[in-house]
């Protein structure tokens, strides 16, 4: 077997680590330190390695002491930092979720004994190759309620819930602190033995520190143990126990810690961070006492090695310099992960669409075929516009708007949330949830409705259809479908359990197509026997019947001001419905322009959780008759009722202005009057226009404000067809 390190090829053996192979080939140096560029070499035989860091292909910052040799392996030495490679890690990583009665961490003598004595399902993990149980596996994080995250061979994450955890994590040998203790060839005595006493190497040892990291991660306390010269676990944790040398048991007595004479700037405390005794002395000179502060000042223990070697010595050095007992300085808190873990490994297969699934409507294939440009609305992919050859978005939107205003256009509205509300108390329930009243809503009719939070601020809006005496369908905004259902459930379960009401999400069961424009009636007339003339099918009415041979529920709702029908069918037949409608498809951008021309606000765009219905000029939607509904009491709160609140108005700017722009009274002022919430170019108006929230906006109609230096006249928010003449079709 051959491998390459720093451009030189070496022979290797099966089952060796890269570090072992380097040392066996006589490479005792080969590395350099991060800040001082001092020559360094393999220092340990384990995961605490501070010097021998390598990059292998796209994988940065690997420890040569953990890398298993493979034929043809190419490793580059790193000085403390890896390189991100601009190609995705395509390795397939796995995740296993496991439950057990006992998790034993460490397969040394104590760990194996604990595992053998344990009853029930036992998982034993160990870092060693060929160890008992799960080998080459590190528990990197220990969290609440005995939740352990372990990494097996850098390929698989184990997420383990254990009833009981036994920590048999052993101890780590400490470096000795003396001048030039970082020279290549200096290595810990244990590593020296493991590597077969390599010629030219110097073994050192400063004693042994219990490997208390996982105990500390699980919020176990530590106390200083004078005999081993290091912190040991203290107190108790529910369901976690320590056995063997992690408790300090069986470890040799530590040599008394003493600083030798010599150059303190060459006595390394943290090899990876290049921090020395001189750095600790500076920290103490700056007045720092707690070891946590010394750590932050010197950066000791903040490298990828995370202080496995350095932390105890840092405490010893600081205590020596301050002439205090180490216990007085406290200990550092160990936090996950115990070892560096790549994001790709943690993510496992939850990447791309498996992490963030795309939701598409049943009509999606038609949008793709039509070359739609999509936008993300929550997880939904919604067509934003449908460009013809050579069209940019502005050109496509102008054409789509013109079709909706002058002939007939269609939009996929299937993403709107739909909640089925049923039960004897459904009317009472809706009366409490929405600001308006539903007692008088007849079966077969629908009503625009607004929902507030108890603070009186608008939460969502939609249309409530009464489809039966005790049955309603409420639509929600696309992004709020799940939150509105959860909100309704919360009130029903926790405040009004006496109401006989049942809620069901129908969002994905129905497909909805809005058929919009003065010719929409004529288009539908060719596809249905439902009487469509104005008298038979008035505005805000609901009719059932076949459309293009598909059973449908048709509502006369308009979000554009034009004559319009929303056709709802079984989701599985949505595509068929769409394809049978000979109309110009339009996307969300055109929808936004059409509704803004009519001054219809979009919750979440023109509102932001600080806006009441009154602020939007929609006092008419707030029932004055109902004794109470969610939000009502807040409308008379001093802050909600005060003059000077921001109100929704229209703007006629001299040029296009950007959404979010601050509005000021004169170009030199910085005192904010409000901000632009929506801004578009309008074919119907022949000019740019905007919607904005402006302090006392309705009193300022006629005044001029400035957006980024562009003058804009404040006008009423309804800019198109103020009389509503087009609602029933092309005016005669």
């Amino acid at each position, binding site marked *: 077997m051959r491998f390459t390190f720093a451009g030189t090829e070496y022979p290797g053996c099966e089952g060796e680590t890269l570090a072992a192979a380097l040392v066996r080939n006589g490479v005792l140096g080969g590395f350099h330190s991060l800040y001082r560029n001092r020559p360094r070499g393999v220092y340990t035989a384990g995961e605490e390695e501070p010097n021998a860091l390598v990059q292998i292909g796209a994988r940065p910052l690997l420890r040569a002491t953990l890398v298993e040799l493979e034929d043809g392996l190419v490793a580059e030495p790193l000085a403390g930092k890896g390189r991100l490679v601009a190609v995705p890690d395509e390795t397939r990583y796995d995740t296993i979720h496991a439950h057990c009665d006992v998790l034993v961490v460490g397969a040394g003598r104590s760990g194996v004994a604990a595992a053998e004595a344990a009853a029930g399902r036992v998982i034993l993990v160990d870092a060693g190759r060929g160890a008992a149980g799960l080998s080459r596996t590190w528990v990197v994080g220990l969290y*609440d*309620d005995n*939740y352990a995250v372990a990494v097996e061979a850098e390929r698989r994450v184990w997420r383990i819930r254990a009833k009981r955890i036994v920590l048999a994590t052993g101890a780590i040998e400490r470096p000795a602190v003396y001048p030039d203790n970082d020279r290549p060839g200096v290595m810990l005595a244990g590593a020296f033995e493991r590597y077969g006493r390599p010629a030219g190497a110097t073994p050192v040892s400063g004693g042994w520190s219990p490997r208390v990291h996982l105990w500390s991660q699980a919020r176990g306390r530590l106390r200083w143990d004078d005999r081993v010269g290091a912190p040991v676990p203290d107190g108790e944790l529910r369901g976690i126990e320590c056995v063997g040398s992690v408790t300090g048991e069986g470890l040799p007595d530590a040599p008394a810690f003493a600083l030798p004479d010599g150059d303190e700037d060459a006595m390394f405390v943290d090899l990876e961070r290049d921090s020395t005794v001189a750095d600790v002395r500076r920290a103490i000179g700056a007045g720092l006492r707690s070891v946590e502060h010394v750590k932050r000042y010197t950066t000791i223990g903040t490298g990828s090695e995370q202080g496995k070697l350095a932390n105890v010595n840092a405490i010893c050095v600081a205590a020596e310099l301050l002439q205090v007992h180490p216990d007085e300085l406290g200990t550092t808190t160990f936090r996950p992960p115990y070892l560096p873990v790549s994001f790709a490994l943690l993510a496992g297969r939850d990447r791309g669409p498996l992490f963030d699934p795309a939701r598409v409507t049943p009509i999606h294939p038609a949008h793709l075929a039509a070359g739609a440009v999509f936008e993300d609305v929550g997880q939904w992919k919604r067509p934003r516009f449908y460009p013809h050859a050579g069209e940019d978005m502005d050109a496509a939107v102008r054409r789509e708007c013109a079709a909706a205003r002058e002939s007939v256009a269609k939009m996929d509205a299937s993403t709107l949330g739909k909640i089925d509300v049923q039960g004897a108390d459904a009317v009472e329930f809706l009366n409490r949830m929405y600001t308006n009243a539903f007692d008088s809503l007849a079966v077969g009719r629908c009503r625009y409705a607004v929902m507030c939070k*108890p603070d009186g601020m608008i939460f969502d809006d939609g249309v409530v259809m009464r489809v039966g005496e005790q049955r309603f369908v409420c639509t929600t905004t696309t992004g709020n479908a799940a939150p509105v259902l*959860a909100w309704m*459930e919360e009130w029903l379960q926790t*405040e009004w359990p006496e109401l006989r009401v049942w809620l069901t999400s129908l969002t994905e069961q129905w497909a909805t197509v809005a058929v919009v424009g003065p010719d929409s009636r004529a288009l539908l007339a060719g596809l249905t026997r439902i009487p469509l003339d104005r008298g038979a099918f008035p505005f805000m009415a609901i009719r059932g019947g076949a459309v293009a041979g598909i059973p449908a529920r048709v509502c006369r709702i308009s979000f554009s001001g034009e004559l319009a029908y929303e056709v709802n069918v079984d989701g599985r037949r949505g595509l068929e419905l769409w394809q049978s409608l000979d109309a110009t498809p339009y996307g969300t951008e055109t929808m936004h322009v059409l509704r803004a021309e009519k001054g219809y606000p979009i919750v979440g765009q023109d509102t932001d959780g600080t806006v009441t219905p009154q602020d939007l000029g929609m006092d008419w939607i707030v029932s004055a008759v109902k004794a109470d509904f969610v939000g009502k*009491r807040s409308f008379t709160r001093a802050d909600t009722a005060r003059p000077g609140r921001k109100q929704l108005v229209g703007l006629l700017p001299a040029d296009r202005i950007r959404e979010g722009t601050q509005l000021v009274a004169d170009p030199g002022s910085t005192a904010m009057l409000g901000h632009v919430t929506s801004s578009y170019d309008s074919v119907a108006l022949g000019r740019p226009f905007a919607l904005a929230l402006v302090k006392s906006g309705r009193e300022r109609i006629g005044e001029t404000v400035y957006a980024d230096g562009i003058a804009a006249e404040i006008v009423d928010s309804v800019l198109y067809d103020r009389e509503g003449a087009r609602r029933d079709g092309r005016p005669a």
Partner: protein
Amino acid sequence: MILIPCPWCGDREETEFSCGGQAGVPYPSDPVALSDEEWAKYLFFRENPRGPFRERWVHTHGCRRWFELTRDTVTHEIHVRRD
């Protein structure tokens, strides 16, 4: 990540739940009768103790039922009232 005992489903991962904050803050029976201060207290003021805290939780990604439990905000120890 703590384990939360859903009264309907048993112990489940914290990520399946949403916390509804302090329990025992009912919607006032007659909000109109309250002063602005009393109403503001209902809207905006909640306890934030160190130690045992009665909380509302909902099993959002499970049975979607609301329930109450007592959680120690320091140790995360949980006690469910079975009534």
